[in-house]
């Protein structure tokens, strides 16, 4: 679903979460959440993002299903930038989710 910015659906999310737990399905698929994979402190894989808010070599802000993900570090490079996937390389120091 490229380009479609998420529309908040508070009620739906609750039911989906319940269903995901019941059927033991991964939440990121059912609830349209992001999946973050951090490998060491140098590679960050972010699946299902909702768009870049800010890009800089010291800070990257990405919109995700659960808020704004702020990646701080040094020499940050976006190796791959696809519609739903993001792959950041560099010296990652902090990850923060701003609700």
């Amino acid at each position, binding site marked *: 679903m490229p380009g479609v910015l998420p529309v908040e659906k508070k009620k739906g999310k609750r039911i989906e979460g319940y269903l995901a737990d019941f059927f033991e399905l991964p939440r990121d698929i059912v609830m349209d959440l992001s999946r973050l994979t951090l490998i060491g402190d140098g590679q960050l894989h972010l699946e299902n993002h909702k*768009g870049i808010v800010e890009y800089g070599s010291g800070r990257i802000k990405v919109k995700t299903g659960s808020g704004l993900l702020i990646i701080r570090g040094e020499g940050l490079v976006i190796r791959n930038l*696809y*519609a739903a996937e993001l792959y950041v390389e560099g010296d990652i120091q902090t990850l923060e989710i701003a609700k």
Partner: protein
Amino acid sequence: MFIRWLLNLLLGYVVIEAEGGGVEKLFNLALSRGILFWNVRRRGDKTVFSTYPDNFPLLRPLSRKAGCPIRIQGKAGFPFLFYRFKKRRGLVAGLILFFLFLYTASGFIWFIEITGAEELAEESLRATAEDLGLSPGTLKRGLDFYSLEREFLLARRDLSWVGFEIRGTKLEIRVVEKTLPEEDFRDVTSDLVASKDGLIEKILVLSGEARVEAGDTVREGEILVSGILTAHYQEGEEVIEGEAGAVRARGEVWARVWYEFSAAYPLTEYTRERTGNRTAFHTLSFLGREIHLGAPSSPYGNYEVEEIKRRVKWRNLDTPVEFMTLYYYEVEVTARELSRDEALFKAGEELFARAQKALPPEAEIAGHRREELPPREGKLRLRLVIETRENIAGEMEHGQKEERTD
């Protein structure tokens, strides 16, 4: 990642430089249209990223909307390389020519290697190959090596096998030489004489005139087949015999030949056995001087002597000091009376061994006879007569005293 890199290289990509703060908006707009980026990095206030070249025109309106001007900083990948080549036709032509040349050149035989020739000259084999159309510069295609091998073999009588193998541009010819029998083609005249005493059984004359016939007894050196031919011609009533030239006598004369062996074997057998007692005498020799440690002499009546020399070594280095030990072993001699059968068996064994050495390998054994002679001086005596059938014809050239043995 490698696959991705290869794909990018194949498809080609452009490196774009974007200026200003609206880069994020540009990215989001582009992503929503399915445009991909990679290697996004910040360089001062500029952002550099890579994308496929087809995307660039699509990005133009988006950059205007996002308020961040973009420009192409670099191009990479094969499509751009080809584009560059288009402008350098000479280079491309050269490249194609080079590969074409390499391809065509690999279709020829450039080297011929000959292995297995020991007696034969490699040059003559090379010449034979050339006669068959195999020389450096021959096109490999269309060559039927199977039939060429046969033709090669037919052309060379001195080979028993030939094998061709192509290794790239090299033709390997492996040959196996024929070992021809050594024939004596000398132009001489000769007789066949008996090499042994014997009784003629069969005579086969290939050339010459037989002087003996089956049933004759011949002595060593007697002429069996003469190379001197006789002719009979009539002169009136008289038949005159005359010489009619000489040839080289050839043929086989098979005769019975007897060999006689005799052996005597004592009926008392002495065995020597060490009793286990021994005395040692040591001698030290240093630079040619010998120092005896005790006088060497045997303390036993019957004894055996053994000498062991040892060089004194010091850490792998030989020293001039030699250590010699003489061992005297006490020996017990026991006499044993052999039974007649035992003695016969031992004597027979000895005779057999002697006969095996004496008989020519090509002789065919026709029969044998063994007889016991009356014992003498406490020894059993045995005689063995072996009768063989063998070719006793030996060539002797005319005007030559000694018999040739080849």
